[in-house]
């Protein structure tokens, strides 16, 4: 059977003009992407294989920076542990709390709009301000909570100044600032068909059964989305630990990106910092792939057969 092929012809003047216009319109993004995203990305991969300090020309050293990070670097495994601890506890807890709050805000309660706004406020407050506010709440010497404890003659709690408590305290603040996830969950909850709840009621499902068997499955695509976004953001968290604790006490809150910054701008080790950036990229990629690969088992898409 003969295959019909479209006759080839050159572009008309109008088509060429349209193509040029199209390219012109996307050129700001294209140039920006090439210059400020793709080029730095490729450059950082090259720098990660060099001994580079911002000043002298980079010297190619192959994978030595990577080997050094995994074998002899004094901080790498500490900051890796800190970060995985933070992500591992913070992100699931943040998702769970955000989902529960969204469910509460989705119910018919008085002042629902006000509560929604209040819950979202932490997400639009700059992280530095958030950090300062929590410092005034949690500080062992002058914090509000410890002020009350002091007044009643109790021993203060070193939320941010004890190596044991500093990470959990930062996780608590992370969980507090889940307003964006709450808003996204709210949108998802309002998309759950009413008919499913009605059918569940007819089947005699109580509130918990309706939540577990209708609400949760219908929201799993959004849970997956929030999970991935949460992991990406938490792995790269910088402002909160940097402003609140400066990575201390005893490097207990020295997270990955804080240490990367220190390597680059304090210790002049741009090559090593670039290697750290690529390792972080691979870690985030790995987590994302695992989540996507396992999502078939727990994410329900209504349109799927």
């Amino acid at each position, binding site marked *: 059977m003969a295959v019909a092929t479209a006759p080839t012809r050159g572009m008309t003047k109008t088509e060429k003009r349209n193509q040029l216009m199209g390219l012109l319109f996307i050129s700001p993004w294209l140039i920006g992407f090439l210059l400020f995203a793709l080029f730095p990305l490729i450059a950082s991969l090259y720098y990660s294989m060099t001994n580079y*300090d911002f*000043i002298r020309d980079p010297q190619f050293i192959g994978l030595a920076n990577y080997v050094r990070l995994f074998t002899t670097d004094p901080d790498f495994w500490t900051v890796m542990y800190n970060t995985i601890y933070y992500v591992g506890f913070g992100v699931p807890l943040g998702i769970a709390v955000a989902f529960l709050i969204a469910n509460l805000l989705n119910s018919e309660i008085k002042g629902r709009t006000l509560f929604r706004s209040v819950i979202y406020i932490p997400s639009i407050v700059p992280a530095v301000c958030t950090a300062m506010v929590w410092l005034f709440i949690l500080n062992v010497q002058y914090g509000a909570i410890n002020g009350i404890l002091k007044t009643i003659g109790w021993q203060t709690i070193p939320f941010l*100044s004890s190596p044991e408590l500093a990470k959990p305290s930062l996780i608590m603040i992370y969980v507090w600032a889940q307003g964006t996830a709450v808003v996204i969950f709210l949108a998802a909850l309002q998309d759950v068909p009413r008919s499913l709840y009605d059918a569940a009621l007819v089947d005699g499902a109580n509130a918990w059964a309706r939540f577990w068997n209708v609400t949760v499955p219908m929201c799993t695509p959004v849970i997956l989305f929030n999970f991935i976004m949460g992991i990406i953001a938490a792995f790269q968290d910088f402002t909160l630990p940097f402003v609140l604790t400066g990575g201390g006490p005893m490097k207990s809150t020295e997270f990955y990106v804080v240490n990367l910054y*220190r390597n680059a701008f304090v210790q002049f080790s741009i090559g090593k910092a670039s290697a750290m950036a690529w390792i972080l990229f691979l870690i985030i990629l790995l987590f994302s792939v695992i989540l996507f690969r396992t999502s078939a088992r727990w994410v329900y898409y209504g349109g799927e057969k």
Partner: protein
Amino acid sequence: MNNNGISRRQFLQWGAMTAGVVALAACAPSGAPASAPAAGSEGAAAPAAAPNTVQYWYAWGNLDPAMAKIIETEEFKAHMGGATLEYKGSANQDSLLTAIAAGTPPDGGSNYSYVNLFTRGATIDVKDMADASTVLKADDILEGIWNSAFYKGGMIGVPGIECFNWWGLNVNIDAAEKAGLDTTTLPKTWDEVLEWHKAMTKKDDAGNLLQFGLDPYDAMANEPDFLAASYGVKWFDEETGKFDLANPRIAEGLDTLGEFIRIAGPDQFAGMRQVEGNGTWGAAYNAGVQNMIMEGYWHPGETQIQKPEIAQFNRSSWAPVPADRKDANIMATGLHAVVIFKDAKNKEGAFKLGEFFQTPTALDIIFNEVGWIHGVKSWLTTVDKNKYPGLAFYVDAGPQVTEWTIGRRCPINDFVITQYTELREQVYRNLMEPQAAADELQKRAEAEWQAQGLG
């Protein structure tokens, strides 16, 4: 239908064109200087061959008032020959490194990692310029300061702005007297200072820290130079590139200094430092929370300018040493300089600025506005050493010093400080033996030295 309005396509085309024009205009170089032009430059076009501006960045946050006054003086305007000075304070090392990497550093800079930048070739050797200068006089600058401007024969920058005697124990004698201490003689050995620390450390009934004596790692004591010198160790030999951080005396020092924190409580201490107003260099002393601090010649003047009610009780004396070295009067000095960047557009202009910082006009303004001193011998004789409480010690100390240290000479000084901070905390939290911490510090420093290609 009448269709004489603009189409969507036309609107987009015009919009794109307008945006393009605006973007081009935004990319054009600014015509207005950031600071007032110097005399002679007003209305005059800059010569095309010689840049008529000098860009100067510094990391200090409190030099600005002095700079504002300096550029207004006729002497400065005449010295700079009509050049406009564009200065930027609080410009930290991050922004400087980024500018260096981009090939657009300022012409001159101060208060950065001088040796680090110089050994990596970011700043130029100014020896030839200094030799040719009629303003810069080597024999009029204190020997230690002049020597600190050199590294392996090269001259790092023009010594200037401030630099004098770095180490003294500064005590709030009002707090000491309230703690029942005899302030006739200030403590000299670590044992004595520890007793003062105990007396001045106050906690409430529940054990919460209210005030304390000395943070042995605050301000100048934060750097390994200090602990090493106090215990008579030279931790880095710049000629050989060898480290001596595993020296048992360093371990002894880590243990002794750690005791100060143990008494106050490590968690309490860390919490106190996290608070705005107590966290930055010297802030807890000004706040009256900390009553002893290791600082230098700038301390009396800065405290007077920033917190006169505390400064009135300030008294200064020798930095502490262990009991077996009680006769050692240790002191450090080092470099603050105007360094000139390799890619500077106006190297001569930056050098002239460095020269001007040697003049009595600039030195007087800086002394009065910021409280700093620079070791220019002819000018030091004019300084009123009683202007700021505690200053007399620093002015008079020189001849009595028995051991001098030239500070911050290691090209990986910042790395060592980062590691030192972590390991000493492990010691005072009793998580690591002092000698093990010293050994680990040595190991990390050597590994970094090699890894940075400096070995």
